Each structure stands twice: as structure tokens, then as C-alpha cells.
């Protein structure tokens, strides 16, 4: 593994008496594809909320490209290259598809976008995602799969170095899952590290180079997909004793 782009050390997060994350350590290499799995309520979304800044962890640190970002608000993390997509799509409903991408291009990626290149950069992302023929449609009227694509497109328009994809494929058909997988692989080929949270095992297994398994707020396994499926702890977490 090359020098890590992201280093999560000893991150814990409590909600009242409930410990959602308990001393998580995680490293991610530049351009790595990591799958984050675990049963419902294991803390996956809490962890990526801490990475993207939606939540601030109680203890531990998060270092991105050698810089401690633990206390930074989400918009400053986005400006440094941490992007995420949401499990439930959150489009800017009053805007067209193209305008949705203008927001991250004009804010998160401002320092990385040439003057007057906003529309062409947005169209480039839409072409990669396959939404270019919907560019001027209202984002509120999109189909479910297109909404998911827009969610990814908006994350990409922030020109991230790390993309955190939170269940981008839940509820999609098999062909649609393949479409989204292809997009994520194309993105990774351009040098973006990806953390993928997913329940569809076929998708994670096919995508991830490495898997991290969470259970009840703790990391119980970290390794190649082949190792993970043979790991007795993981089996116990998913299937019980």
C-alpha cells in the first residue's frame, strides 16, 4: 500500500449511552477500493459521517493527506477532496440536473476548476455518469436510478480524492447495480480512492480490493474479500452462533 490518503485512528462516537463506534482504526491507500460491510446498526454510516464531517467523533483523529481534519466542518473537508453520496438521495430539488453539479463545482472544487469551465466540467461528469441527456431536466422529476446517479455525479463534481459511497445501489435492479459499479470503477481508474458501503454482497465482492467489517461499533475484520468470507468472526456477526 502506498502512503495512506486517509488515516482513522481510535475513533469513537457515543449517542447518549449507546456506543456507535468504539476505537475504530482504518487506513486507506490512495486509489484504493475499500468495501465497508457489517450488519444493520453496526456503525457504518456513523463512521462515514465522522469521515465526511457530518458528525464529530468524541475521541480519536482523522487525518486526510497528512492533515488532521478531525475538527473541520464538512464543507472544508469537501474542499480538501473528501466527497460523499447519501444513502437516500438528496438532490437540490429546485435546480436542474446541471445546476445540481454547479454547486460543488463552484464551492468544493472551486480551487480546482478553471474560470468559465464550470458548465463544460459539469457536462463531462454527466457524460461519465450517463446523465448528459437529462442535463436540463428538473432534478425533482428523475427516476430512482437516475436520482442515485445524480447523487454520485454531484459527489464527483466536487473533484474528490476520496469518494465515500453510502449504499448507492440499495433497491436497484441487477442491471442497474452493474451500471453503478461500472461508474465507480471508471472513477477509481481516474485515481480516486473509494470507500463503498453496500449490502449487496455481489457488488462489494466484485468491487473491493479490501474489506473492513464492522460489528456493534467495532472493527472485527480487515482483509481481502477471500479472507473475509472465510473469517469465523464475520460469519458469527452475520449469522449468529
Amino acid at each position, binding site marked *: 500500500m502506498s502512503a495512506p490518503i486517509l488515516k482513522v485512528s481510535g475513533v469513537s462516537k457515543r449517542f447518549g449511552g449507546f456506543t456507535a463506534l468504539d476505537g475504530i482504526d482504518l487506513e486507506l491507500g490512495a486509489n484504493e477500493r475499500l468495501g465497508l460491510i457489517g450488519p444493520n446498526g453496526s456503525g457504518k454510516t456513523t463512521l462515514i459521517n465522522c469521515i465526511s*464531517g457530518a458528525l464529530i467523533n468524541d475521541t480519536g483523529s482523522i487525518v486526510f493527506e497528512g492533515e488532521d481534519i478531525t475538527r473541520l466542518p464538512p*464543507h472544508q473537508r469537501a474542499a480538501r477532496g473528501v466527497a460523499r453520496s*447519501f444513502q437516500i438521495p*438528496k438532490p*437540490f430539488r*429546485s*435546480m436542474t440536473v446541471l445546476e445540481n453539479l454547479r*454547486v460543488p463545482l463552484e464551492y468544493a472544487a*472551486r480551487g480546482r476548476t478553471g474560470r468559465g469551465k464550470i458548465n463544460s466540467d459539469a457536462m463531462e461528469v454527466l457524460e461519465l455518469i450517463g446523465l448528459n441527456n437529462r442535463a436540463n431536466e428538473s432534478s425533482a422529476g428523475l427516476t430512482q436510478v437516475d436520482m442515485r446517479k445524480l447523487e454520485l455525479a*454531484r459527489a464527483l463534481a466536487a473533484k474528490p480524492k476520496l469518494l465515500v459511497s453510502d449504499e448507492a445501489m440499495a433497491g436497484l435492479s441487477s442491471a442497474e447495480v452493474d451500471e453503478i459499479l461500472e461508474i465507480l470503477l471508471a472513477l477509481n481508474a481516474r485515481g480516486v480512492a473509494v470507500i463503498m458501503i453496500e449490502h449487496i454482497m455481489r457488488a462489494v465482492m466484485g468491487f473491493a480490493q479490501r474489506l473492513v467489517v464492522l460489528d456493534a461499533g467495532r472493527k472485527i475484520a480487515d482483509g481481502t474479500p477471500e479472507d473475509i468470507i472465510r473469517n469465523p468472526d464475520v460469519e458469527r456477526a452475520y449469522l449468529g452462533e
Partner: protein
Amino acid sequence: MLKTRADKIFWAVLAAVFLGGLALTELVANEYYYTAIYAILQATIMAVAWNILGGFTGYVNFGSAAFFAIGAYTAVALDKWLGLPLPFLIAASAAVCGLMGLGVGYLTLRLKGVYFAIATLAMAIVLETFVTNWEYVGAARGVYILTPEKVPFFRSYIQLLFVVMLALTLGSIAISRALNSSRIGRGLAAIRDDEVAAECAGVPTLRLKLISTTVMGAMMGVAGAPYPFFVTFVDPLSAFNLFVAVNAIAMPMIGGTAHWIGPVIGALVIGGAQEAITVTISSELNVLVVGLMLVLFITLAPQGIVGLVQKWMKRRKR
């Protein structure tokens, strides 16, 4: 400034309206018209101001009357203390109310939805209590303002105020339009649509919301500054009038909140109707009319008049 054809048309219309206003003072002597138009202009500035926070940013504010009243009382206090000329009073009111917007924003913007709305209402009550006990500006008794008998260029002080107010209104509209189509405007729209997603797209939501409350406050202050000189008597009850606050909400809602022209249309339609009804039927009935129109629009056309026109144009294109 004049980059596109729409820009050219916009500025030409503004110039024409202003010149039309000047011509009116040459042609018409009857003071009633200026009084009526002044009221509509004041409502327009307030509707435009409310819409910057309420429409562009999506934070509903019930405290408009407080900003307006503090603008008016800032002008009263500085007029009594230093006797500054009107342009300075307006600038001072803008500054005071802008700062107040910033402060209130900082304290309340952590609240969302209905909680924010209630906080702004509470702020208005606190400030009203403060002014009601502020002896220097007449406390609960109110205060009389003396205005000059004669003014240069115009027939009366009311005419002068009318022209000043016209210029301020056009200025507010220009600011609102520029904001609406700017990078900041898109950031505000992103906050309105989904604040969490906006933050993750790199939008500094707290800073933009504070810009929004500051501009809103300053504009409300500007609307209030000339008011004491226009009515020549202010007391807390008339300055902190709930009806003023309701109008500032109703007009953008009826006009349409997403586009800069919505509050302008709403203010012209509602303000015009109110003046007409006040003269022809009764001054009490105009409150009822605003209420009825608000109910009708919220249930039947939540996007306002602008939304209706956009829908109609889309249908025609097909």
C-alpha cells in the same frame, strides 16, 4: 453589469421607472398619490428583503417588523441626537439593522424550521419591549418628528421622500436580482433545498446564512429609516405592527419566493389592492383581503404568481 440582453432590459426598466417617478412629481401635485405609492414601495422593499432569507435561503422569519422598527428608531434617535441628513440616517439604519441581522442570525440559525420562525417572533417582542421603555425616543408615548416645510427641487417633503423611497426600492430589487443569479445565490438555494447536502458539496452554510440575514436586516432597516419622516409620528405600536410583518411574508408567498421578481410582483399586486380597497371600501377590509389571498395561493398555487406563469409558459412550449 450589462452582460446579457436580460441585464440591459432590467436596467433600462429600472431607469425608466425612476425617470417616470421624477416626471410624476412634476405633473401631479395631489399628495394622496405619493402617500399611496410610498406605502407600496415600502412594502416592496420589505418583501424583497424578507425573500432573501425566507425565499432564497428557506428560513421563514416572523421578525420583519422588528428590523423595520429598529431602522425607524435608529433614524429617530440619530436625528434627535445629531440632526444628521436623511441619507446618513438611512445608511446608519442599514448598518445597525445589518449588524442586528448578523447577531440574530448567529444566535438563531442553529434552529430549523418552525423553531427558527418562533425565535424571530420572540426577538421582535423583546425589541418592542426595549423600545417601549426607551425614554429618549418617547418610550410608549411615541415621538413627533418635524420635517422641513420647504425642500429644494420638489414641491413638498413627501415628494422628496417618495423619490428617495423609489430609488431605495429599485436599489433593493437590483441587489436581490444580482444575489439570486450569483454564486452566493446558488449556494443559498442549495441550503434551502437540502442543507446537509449543501454542506457536503462544499457550501459554507453558516457563513452564507449569516450573509443572508445581514442583507435581509440591512434592507429592512433601509425600509424603516424614512418612515418616521413620512408619518411624522412613531410609537412602538405602529412601528412594530404585526400587519407589517404579515405583509412582508404574504407578498413574496403570493408573488413566488424562488425568483427575485416574485416579491416585487406580490408587493405590487397586494399593495395596490390594499390601497384601492382602503380608498373604495374600508381600511379594515384590506387585512381580510391579504389573509384570503394568502390562503388561496398557499393551497392552490404554492409557487406563487411566478410559478403559475412558469407553468403556463412550459405548457405553451410543448
